[in-house]
C-alpha cells in the first residue's frame, strides 16, 4: 500500500483533497518539496530524502496542520490576526487570504515597533501572527515573542522553529506552493467559521492566489537560481 510517507508517488487523480483539487494536483504544486538541509525541529515532518538529496515533507501532516491552523485562526477571530510575508512570491497569496478572511495583511518591510510600540502610527494590537517564512520574517517573530503573541509559521525543512507556536510544514519557496498553502488555509478558516461548507468552492482558485510574473522576472530568477536546482 502506498502511503504519504513514500516519497516517489505522484498521488491519485480520484482522491480529492478539497473540491476541484485532487491529490495529484496538490503534489504537482510542489507543496512537499523541501531542501537539502533538514533541521532537527523539522525532522518530525519529513520523510526520507530523494536520491538527489532533497528532503520531502509528509504532506498528510501539512494538510492536518493547515486544518488545525484554520481552526486556531477562526477561534481567535481573523480580524485579530496579522499575516506577514517579506517574500515577493508571498505577496499575492497573503493579500488574497486576507481579502477572503478579513485578516490584516502586512507585506514587504515589517516596520520595527509595529507590535511593540504603541506610539507608532502603524501599531497593531493583535492576538495571533501568521508568517510565511521564519528565516526571512524574523522581525515579526521577535516582536511577537516580546509581546507574548502566538506565532503560526509555514516552515520548510531547513527552518528553525524558535519562537513559533504552530508549525505548518510546507514548501515556502515555491510560488505555486505558497499559493496552495494559503488557499487551503483560507478555505480551512472559512470552513471552521461556518462561512463555507465542505463541498462549496472559494471565490478564487489557486491560480488567483499565485503571484504572476513577467518574462523578465522569470529570466532574472533563472539566473539567480543555483545550477544544481535546475
Amino acid at each position, binding site marked *: 500500500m502506498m502511503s504519504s510517507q513514500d516519497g516517489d508517488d505522484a498521488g491519485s487523480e480520484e482522491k480529492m483533497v478539497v473540491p476541484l483539487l485532487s491529490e495529484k494536483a496538490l503534489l504537482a504544486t510542489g507543496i512537499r518539496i523541501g531542501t537539502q538541509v533538514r533541521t532537527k*525541529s523539522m525532522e518530525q515532518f519529513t520523510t526520507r530524502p530523494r536520491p538527489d538529496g532533497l528532503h520531502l515533507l509528509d504532506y498528510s501532516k501539512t494538510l492536518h496542520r493547515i486544518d*488545525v*491552523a484554520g*481552526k*486556531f485562526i477562526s*477561534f*481567535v477571530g481573523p480580524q485579530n490576526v496579522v499575516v506577514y510575508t517579506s517574500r515577493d512570491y508571498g505577496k499575492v497569496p497573503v493579500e488574497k487570504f486576507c481579502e477572503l478572511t478579513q485578516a490584516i495583511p502586512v507585506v514587504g518591510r515589517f516596520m520595527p515597533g509595529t507590535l511593540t510600540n504603541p506610539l507608532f502610527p502603524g501599531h497593531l494590537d493583535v492576538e*495571533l501572527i501568521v508568517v510565511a517564512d521564519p528565516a526571512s520574517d524574523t522581525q515579526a517573530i521577535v516582536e511577537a*515573542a*516580546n509581546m*507574548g*503573541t*502566538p506565532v503560526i509559521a509555514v516552515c520548510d525543512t531547513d527552518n*528553525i*522553529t*524558535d*519562537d*513559533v*507556536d*504552530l*508549525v505548518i510544514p510546507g514548501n515556502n519557496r515555491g510560488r505555486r506552493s505558497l499559493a496552495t498553502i494559503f488557499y487551503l488555509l483560507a478555505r480551512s478558516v472559512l470552513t471552521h467559521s461556518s462561512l463555507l461548507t465542505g463541498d462549496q468552492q472559494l471565490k478564487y482558485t489557486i491560480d488567483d492566489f499565485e503571484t504572476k510574473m513577467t518574462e523578465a522576472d522569470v529570466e532574472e530568477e533563472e539566473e539567480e537560481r543555483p545550477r544544481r536546482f535546475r
Partner: protein
Amino acid sequence: MPQRSVSLPVCTSCNRPVMPGEKASKFHCPSCQQVAVWRCEKCRKFSRRYKCVNCGFEGP
C-alpha cells in the same frame, strides 16, 4: 497579618511556573480550543514540544 499566596501559571512543556513579566505566550490549544497552553520564554526559544492534556495535540 494574613499571608496571601499567588498561584502562577505553569508552562505546559517544562511544568515550571511562568514568572510575571516573562516573555511567555498563552493560547488555547489550536486543535480543541478547550485547554489553555502556556509556553515559557525558554521553551519557546528552544522550540520544546507541548502537548494538550485534553486532545493530545502535540506542537509546535
